[in-house]
């Protein structure tokens, strides 16, 4: 290693299961790998697949912590594998797929389907005012601070860590998760969206929405983008309570 010490021998215990293989059963499989400087789980898993086991399934895309593809359970905690350095972990590393989401195989889960379903339900897009925007004209002005506030919430990468870390999501199949609630908070802020609190109440004013949250706030702790989920959920709940009282 860089400091002259001998590299560690890492043991990876990886949850293996390919539902497409008849008779396959979930099991932990061990792989041994010599640690290298700057090794991330992206580097380690690819080395295992290239040199030891071509059938190991996992998902990486950007490998830079911005696309949200590679969320998995790392020693029992949801996180982005691509930016997790092995040196931050012990010599024995346990990897498992995110819970809640449909399993594809091994460490690969279908977050895309879940997120699309959530987006369709919550209509996570700006509901424009009537009439087309004239693209030739100067854009509508927006306060620079407000643009930054919206961006702050718009930073969500839909990785699924918050859902995997959520108590309610384990119990309620249709719970929209912190990811969904954060999106509602984001569109509430956006003056371009014509929806009112009455409309948002229709979307999240129940136990599958903001009232399903038990305030365990695992979501807030595991969010790789440090989104302010705790304050946003609390704020949204207050707004929805007062809407519900109307």
């Amino acid at each position, binding site marked *: 290693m860089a400091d002259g010490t001998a590299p560690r021998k890492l043991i990876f215990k990886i949850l293996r299961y*390919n539902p*497409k*293989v008849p008779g396959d059963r979930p099991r932990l499989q061990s792989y041994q790998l010599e640690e290298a*400087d*700057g090794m*991330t789980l992206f580097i380690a898993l690819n080395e295992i697949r*290239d*040199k030891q086991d*071509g*059938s*190991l*399934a996992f*998902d990486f*895309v*950007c*490998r*830079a*912590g*911005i*696309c*949200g*593809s590679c969320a998995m359970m790392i020693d029992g905690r949801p996180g982005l594998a691509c930016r997790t*350095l092995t040196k931050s972990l012990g010599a024995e590393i346990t990897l498992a797929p995110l819970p809640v989401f449909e399993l*594809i*195989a091994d460490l690969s889960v*279908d*977050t*895309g*389907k879940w*997120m*699309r379903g959530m*987006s369709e339900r919550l*209509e*996570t*897009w*700006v509901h*424009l005012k009537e009439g087309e*925007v004239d*693209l*030739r*004209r*100067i*854009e*509508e*002005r*927006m*306060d*620079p601070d407000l*643009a*930054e506030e919206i*961006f702050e919430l*718009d*930073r*969500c*990468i*839909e990785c699924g860590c918050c859902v995997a870390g959520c108590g309610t999501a384990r119990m309620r199949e249709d719970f929209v998760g912190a990811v969904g609630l954060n999106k509602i908070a984001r*569109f509430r802020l*956006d003056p*371009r*969206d014509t929806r009112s609190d009455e409309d948002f109440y229709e979307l999240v004013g129940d136990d599958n929405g903001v009232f399903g949250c038990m305030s365990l706030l695992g979501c807030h702790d595991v969010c790789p983008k440090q989104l302010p989920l705790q304050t946003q959920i609390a704020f949204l709940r207050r707004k929805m309570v007062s809407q519900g009282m109307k």
Partner: protein
Amino acid sequence: MKVVYTDVLVIGGGLAGLRLAVGAKRRGHDAIILSLVPPKRSHSKAAQGGMQASLGNVSKGQGDTEDVHFEDTVRGSDWGADQEVVRMFVNTSPKAVRELAAWGVPWSRVRKGDRQAVINGQKVTLTERDEAHGTVAQRDFGGTKKWRTCYVADATGHAMITAVADRAIAESIPVHERKEALALIHDGGRCLGAVVRDLVTGEVLAYVAKATAIATGGAGRLYRNTTNAVICEGIGHAIALETGVAALGNMEAVQFHPTAIFPAGILVTEGCRGDGGLLKDASGHRFMPDYEPEKKELASRDVVSRRMEEHIRKGNGVKSRFGEHLWLDITLLGEKHIHQNLREVWDICHYFLGVDPVKDFIAVRPAQHYTMGGVRTKPTGESPTLKGLFSAGEAACWDMHGFNRLGGNSVAETVVAGMIVGEFVADFCDKPENAVTVPVGLVQDFVEREKAKLDAIANRRGGEDPSVLKLEMQDLMSSQVGIFRTGEDLQKAVDGLQKLLARARNVGVRSAAPGPNPELVTAYRVQRMIKLALTIAYGALTRTESRGAHFRSDYPRRNDAEWLKRTLATWKSDSDTLPTLDYEPLDVTRMELPPGWRGYGAKDYIDHPDTPARAAEIEAIKASGKAPDRFALQQALMPFEHLLPEPLRGRNERIDEPF
């Protein structure tokens, strides 16, 4: 055999594909998007710094127009671009920013009054106009005369694709995720869809469509060191090439980005330098002004990358156990600016380098970044040789980037080409003569052929190891077909790749397990990737000049007399081991901006014989004084508006050019 029918099949769920599909859908045509990954995970997401559009809102952008953007883009391309397409692009880009603003992209906005900035290493105070307050802001980028790059902090692509992917959901456009196109279905003249593999189940099926669009992004993973995402393997390019009919343009034009973090290769945005960051060597010396007194760190990417490698070769690199690198210094921008506007950069430095860019220098070295070449199209986005095949974005050679793309013009191209080509795809589908009845026999033949290829690989034990083939290909490309190229190295690359191609025909896997089978995926992709690598290496070997990012140490001058032409590569037969190269000349007599010096980089080039006459003609038109304004003058030099779809025509309003 399972067949899915749709009007428009879009291959690729990044920004270009999504926007194109929205355009076609709004015109009443059903579109299905195929995507390797959920769309919001596409490589479009990785665009950090911003998109160029000549809004001219900030003080340093005042006076900017389509004309200035046009000239910057053509100079950046080293005159390789199609100037009519550049005009279509620069006129639409402001409209694209404004459309995205309406769709919810939280563009960073202008704040009136004084603010501190860093320009050329000096702290300066800039004053923004009251009337610009709240409009979309611009930052500085390389190779531009004005501040033109619109941005959302340093997560512009992220914000754009979030809005556009959600817009596609709003328009009820289905995205078939984890589906890969293996081959285009065609009859030699007409494209009719694609053979597709489900990456979850392994099932092979057919999609038949009136119009098929390739929007699969770049091919960076042909190289060992690249900023590109792992899915950018050029398979969209390759399946077009494998038709033997569609051509790939200018594949030898490969961009290397100056600031990939070392050694991981992850991009840190050009916005670092645009906002005032400096490049420094082992002794802490700022070296770019020594080489490029005009634009310094903000010359075009091809020039900065070459200067950095040159400086390392002279012995000024920082030595490390992984090799040599240089430093990017953004400490002078201050903590507040970095945490607000360069937040991703901070994250990347923190997680992958373990440094804090507020206090520490960032280790950087150029890495492969962008594929200027792609599926050759007409200005409509359609292949000139394979009817019904369209392409948009990085996968296309439309061709607005020529031999070097400017920073901020790629993510701009995705949405602009999506808007424009989406309209032309809809026009195509509107025509009754383009209706398709499913040609069952032809579709069956294509599906059976692909299945047979997959079976052959899956059942071959003890064949060539796909990951070894891929690594050897990547090493050849990075070592022999990189920033500095010579005939000798390129010949080695071509020879080596041809050997790899022969070996790849015997590729096998260790397991034929059903389902995702990632090893099988690598195996069938690597066969195609090696062909694509050969189009790059062979195109580079044949082009005996230097232009933009294609730099031949043995032919260091740009040679307009012989090489002002676009390379067109086709792969005529599966038994071939080299592409067939043809050339399409660029017509100087119709250029709005005839070739000259770029304003940075080498001043030495060989003129085209038509250049002096065309330059004189343009001077005469300008001097005649007949044109009442810049629009009339532009129209006299090179009319383009007739090329745009009707809904996208028209001028762009600015604070300084009110309607």
